[in-house]
């Protein structure tokens, strides 16, 4: 099985460190990139639109971020989606257990699921195998 490229978009530096460790442990991803807000991720996406080798297979997206939060990111990606040559699976990963966030995530058809923090290695493996 070909290993996947995963992007982590989250402003929590500690979380970024942790998830990096977990990704390495899971050993199902070939590449890993981290972004502190949606804006950074969108900018990068725009740069590599047709480059399948760099485009992510999976994005784990936080909701609350400065500059561009998760929802704004979803709006942005809607607009460039047609230009993206790869199908990207997006999961919301949030420490919020508020029902409204969970419900809101369901209104985006590009969001595959909602994973409450903490994320485990098993979660990562499941995400990949679910694909």
């Amino acid at each position, binding site marked *: 099985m070909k290993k996947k490229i995963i992007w982590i978009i989250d402003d929590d530096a*500690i979380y970024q460190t942790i998830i990096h460790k977990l990704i390495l442990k899971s050993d199902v991803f070939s590449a890993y990139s981290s972004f502190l807000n949606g804006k950074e991720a969108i900018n990068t996406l725009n740069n590599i639109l047709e480059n399948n080798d760099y485009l992510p297979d999976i994005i784990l997206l936080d909701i609350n971020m400065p500059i561009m939060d998760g929802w704004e990111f979803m709006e942005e990606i809607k607009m460039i989606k047609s230009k993206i040559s790869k199908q990207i699976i997006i999961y919301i990963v949030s420490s919020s257990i508020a029902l409204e966030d969970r419900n809101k995530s369901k209104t985006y058809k590009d969001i595959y699921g909602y994973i409450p923090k903490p994320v485990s290695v098993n979660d990562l493996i499941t995400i990949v195998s679910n694909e």
Partner: protein
Amino acid sequence: MRNEKNRISFINWFANRPRVSGFLLFITITIATIFISLLSNHILREEERNEMKIILEDANKNIEESLKNCYSTNVSLALTLNNDGVPQNFNVVSKQLIKSNPIISAVQLVPDGVIKYIYPMKGNEAAMNLNILDSKYLQEEAEKSIETQKMYFAGPLKLKQGGTGIVGRLPIYNKNKFWGFSAVIIKLETLIKTSGINSIDQSKYYFQFSKKNPITSKEQFFLPSKTDLSKSYYVYSPIPDSDWILYLIAKNPPVIYPLVLLGVILGIIIAILFGILTTKLLKKPEELRLLLKDQETKLLKNELRFKTIFDQATIGFAIIDACNGDLVEANNKYCDMLGYTYDEIKAKGIVNLTHPDDLDDTLLNIKKLNEGQITEYFSEKRCITKSGKIIWINLTVSPLWENNERPTTHIAFIKDITERKEAEKLIKKSQARFKSLIDTIDGIVWEYDLETMSSTFISKKIEDILGYSVDEYSGSPSFWEDHIHPEDREFALALSAKENKNYINHDYEYRMIKKNGKVIWIRDIMNFVFENGKPLISRGIMIDITTMKEVEKDLNNSLQLVTEQNKRLLNFSYIVSHNLRSHTSNIESIIYLIESAESEEERNEMMHLLKSVSNSLDETMKHLNEVVNINTNISLVTKPLDLSQYVNKARDILSEQIQLNEASFITNIPDNTTINYNSAYLESILYNLISNAIRYRHPQRKPIVTIKSHKENDKDVIEISDNGIGIDLAKNSDKIFGMYKTFSNNSDARGIGLFITKNQIDAMGGIITVDSTINVGSTFKIYIK
């Protein structure tokens, strides 16, 4: 007298029967006409008869004369005889005789009945020797002359010698012994010629000549005639010395003469005319009489009707003497109303009938009426009935005399209005009750006439609610508008005008200003009253809802407070759930990584990470604690604080950053501006806002912070502006004051300053607003309660 009466009744009989009278007159005149006509006809006939008689007489005389001449001829002839009975010179004498008497055609001497001598002989030969006494045909007549010893004319007969003639025979006695006859023969036509018969008017009359047949005794006619004598009109006369009768017959015997007929016709026409004329003439008075009778009947009917009306009317009528007020006449109703009989009431007079309290008024009115000051009068007054009861009447009095005449009588109409008066009393009573009821209603009841656009009623409650009296209200047509609170006036008038156009019941609230200047809240409930689908009036009640409004306001404030609190609480719970969980989840993950660490190095790394999570958690806990403190600190100590002093204090604390960023300040705070605030909060608010203004500076320019203070609606406002990067409010206005909301990648941004600031301002009962433009700057305004 009796005759006169009879005469009149006789005339009347005819006068009453115009047709019969006309007919009778016609008959009478006709009869008279016929009678006169008959009479005149008769006279005319007599005249004619006389005329005929004269003619006849003439003829008769002529004949008689001729015949008499014949006698003398015969005598002369006889004288020719000598004593022996032999004629001497017969021919000579005869010739002489015929010559003197030309009617005679021949003379004869007939001794013993035998014709022996004839002159002239010529033409008469056949008669010679004829024995006339022997001839049956002649015998009787011959014998008749012998018998009478007179001359007798026989014939007319057919003569032996030819033709028709008459023979006048004179018996001749010689020595008293019958000798024979002397005879003359006269031709009938000669005789007639002599008589002058032929000379008469042939168109009118004709003659007839008759003789009784000696043998048959039948009358024999000799002249040719077609007429039946019995049917003809004629006169006759016998010719002497013969049995002849001479007739004069009218050719066309007129029964009625044309003139008479004309007279009859004229008479009848006149009779008809007179009949018709009389009928017409007699009918005229009859018609007039009928007309009169008709009029009379009508008049009678009218009188009866008026009498009936007078007696049966439901209104009382009375005729009053103008001078003393006595009742001259009164109808049943009038009597009934007052309980008197007709005779009783007549003795009363209006003075006695009128209630003493109303008497002066009545007398004054009558006086005015009599003096011509008024032409009639109406009044409502009281009367006293026979039983002493007081009744109310409606009275109308009109004079029954012309304006320039002396007052004679008045006619009065009265109507019992006691019931109405009582009803009125009741109505007044109930009106008063309703009024007092309305006045007890805890609201100003009002009524407005939509047609006249004027107020028609306002209840007394206006004094309690607005402090103005009813009169003050009524005195000003624009009272209502004038006393509406200026801020509500436009709205209230517009609404009222709108609903007054659509006629929709509505209620609305507005403020009014009381007489004492106090503002009160009014709820005005307005209804339209329709009649036949047309709105006539609007009615309403103005209720004082000031207390209610205050309560409502308090309630609204509380609600707002509660809502705000709730929102903060929700936000807080979210913060707790999110911020704490983000730490706990990190801890959880780190623990997993420590447990699964493959090297000591890795484990140490994780332990290090755990420590920083622990610090973060601690910080978050502190923040939360701070927030909880702000929100739970109910009894915050506030005191007047010098604003400038606190601004300077904040600048001192931030002096390092100010220097570092080369920030400059523009402060515009009026001297001695003091605000009532909690000291720590003011310090914190100013610190957070100024530090943000510097922290989010625009990278291409030096930060300028402007701090201003002024009053808005009596409230202190602190305004802090910067020329920094600004915030996209379109995106972030809802989260700008949220916890851990950061809008830049500035590593210093913790997303707590504005959150704390907002909580502090809220806790002080104030408001914070933000106005910002990206790349231009932001302005925060703090409204201090």
